[in-house]
């Protein structure tokens, strides 16, 4: 049985059909990158996986059980912006991930428990390269450091899967490369199932073990919202790096152009 099973999922915003008849099955530990033109539903799909929205039709299963209809600790997430708490220091931003699930009344630890949690958080922060910035507030960090923090925060709760919504979209290319390395290392260490939405095709090919292209199969020129997107290409990647180059060549030009 596959880890995540998506069965005939439809989703629309009013008259705007975004996803139609989506089917997908993903096994544990895969790194799926989601690409496609703007408005093709890849972020919507991520929000469905996250539980922030519910599908109109169809179902999403995690190990055969329907996913909870609201966000929970089984799914970690990193957004492009606003992923961390501005009012907590770097250290507390990660510590809170240990406190919230285990302190349902106070939402925080005290005394020895707090010290332990902070030590664990510090380990995690050192791992992502933020060991020198524990006492700073997010507003004092650069964009790349904020995203490192957001990743550390998401991983500390040990989620079953990690959802990334264009996490590096606002970073400059050099920083982005560093983040790619970090993310791949963390993925290898944790063996997490990752879904990552990106606008950057080469990023999608570089990182993923599987590239999912979202695109509309049918288009009515008079009513562009009438039909939704499906996964039109499902490309296994990085078994050998050469397959990526072949796969790019096999994409029709309009997909490549739109995704850029």
């Amino acid at each position, binding site marked *: 049985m596959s880890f995540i099973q998506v069965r005939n999922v439809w989703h629309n915003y009013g008259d705007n059909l975004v996803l139609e008849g989506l089917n997908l099955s993903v096994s544990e530990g895969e790194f799926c990158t989601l690409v496609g033109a703007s408005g093709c539903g890849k972020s919507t799909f991520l929000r469905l996986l*996250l539980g922030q929205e519910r599908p109109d039709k169809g179902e999403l299963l995690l190990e055969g059980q329907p996913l909870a209809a609201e966000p929970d600790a089984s799914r970690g*997430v990193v957004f492009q912006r606003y992923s961390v708490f501005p009012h907590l220091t770097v250290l507390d931003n990660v510590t809170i991930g240990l406190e*919230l*699930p285990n302190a349902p009344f106070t939402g925080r630890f005290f005394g020895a428990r707090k010290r332990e949690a902070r030590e664990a958080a510090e380990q995690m922060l050192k791992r992502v390269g933020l060991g020198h910035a524990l006492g*700073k507030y*997010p507003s004092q960090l650069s964009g790349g450091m904020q995203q490192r923090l957001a990743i550390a925060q998401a991983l500390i709760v040990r989620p079953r899967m990690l959802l990334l919504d264009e996490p590096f979209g606002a970073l400059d290319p050099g920083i982005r490369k560093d983040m790619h390395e970090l993310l791949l290392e963390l993925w290898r260490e944790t063996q997490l199932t990752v879904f990552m939405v990106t606008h950057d095709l080469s990023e999608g090919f570089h990182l993923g073990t599987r590239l999912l292209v979202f695109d509309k199969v049918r288009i009515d020129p008079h009513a562009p919202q009438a039909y939704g997107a499906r996964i039109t290409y499902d490309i296994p990647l990085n078994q050998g790096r050469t397959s990526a180059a072949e796969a790019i060549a096999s994409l029709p030009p309009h997909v490549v152009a739109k995704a850029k």
Partner: protein
Amino acid sequence: MRFINRRPSRGGRWLLALLPLIVLLLVYTVASAVRLTENAEDKLLPSATQMIDAIKHMAFTEDARSGDYLFWSDTLASLTRLLLGMGIAALVGLFLGIASGAFPLLGGSLSPLLAVASMVPPLAILPILFIVFGLDELSKVMLIVIGITPVLARDLEQRAREIPAEVLVKGQTLGGNSWTLVLRVVLPPLFSRLLTSLRLMLGAAWLFLISAEAISATSGLGYRIFLVRRYMSMDIILPYVVWITLLAWAMDYALNFVNRKGFPWSVGGQQ
């Protein structure tokens, strides 16, 4: 150089800040001296010595009738009412603001109610307060509470809604429940905002306090200035007004200080 590009130097800034005050004081002193030479019994523009004498009398000699030092007992009475009123308003406002802003189900009922309540002119219901709560302390405190709570609550409600959805989702993926999310994610930024809102509401709070004291009280800064108006005692009224302004300014400064020290991230994150 164009006027629009000219900026004061460091020392010049102090000079510019003090200049209008000095000019005002000067104008007052001259006008007061002119009137007093014409008529030594003039009460409209008392001299500095007259005002100091009056305040000495109010602050450092016992009142013949009550045995109180009136200046201090007035200050104490007013500050007690004001702080009590603002404290209750802050707590209730924070509670309503979070309930309405963070929970859509509660907001559905609370939000329109607060919108309507904040439009009721508080002074118009002062008679009702006197009837319901009597003429003593409670009605004055209640006027401040009723006057500023809806505005505070609406402001905080708005701020709670401005918390990005991403932040709330993130809190849920870290395992928070509704209560701990409010405690750890919603409350801290709103508490900081509450201090700022309170600063903005200080003027209104003093307005309600002095109105209530003017109408029905037996002590308080507002009561005193309205009482001595009967004797045209400008030598008491003017220092009282300056004192009220100073108190209000000190409270404003204190709230800002607490905000900066307690919530360093709210002002750019300096430690």
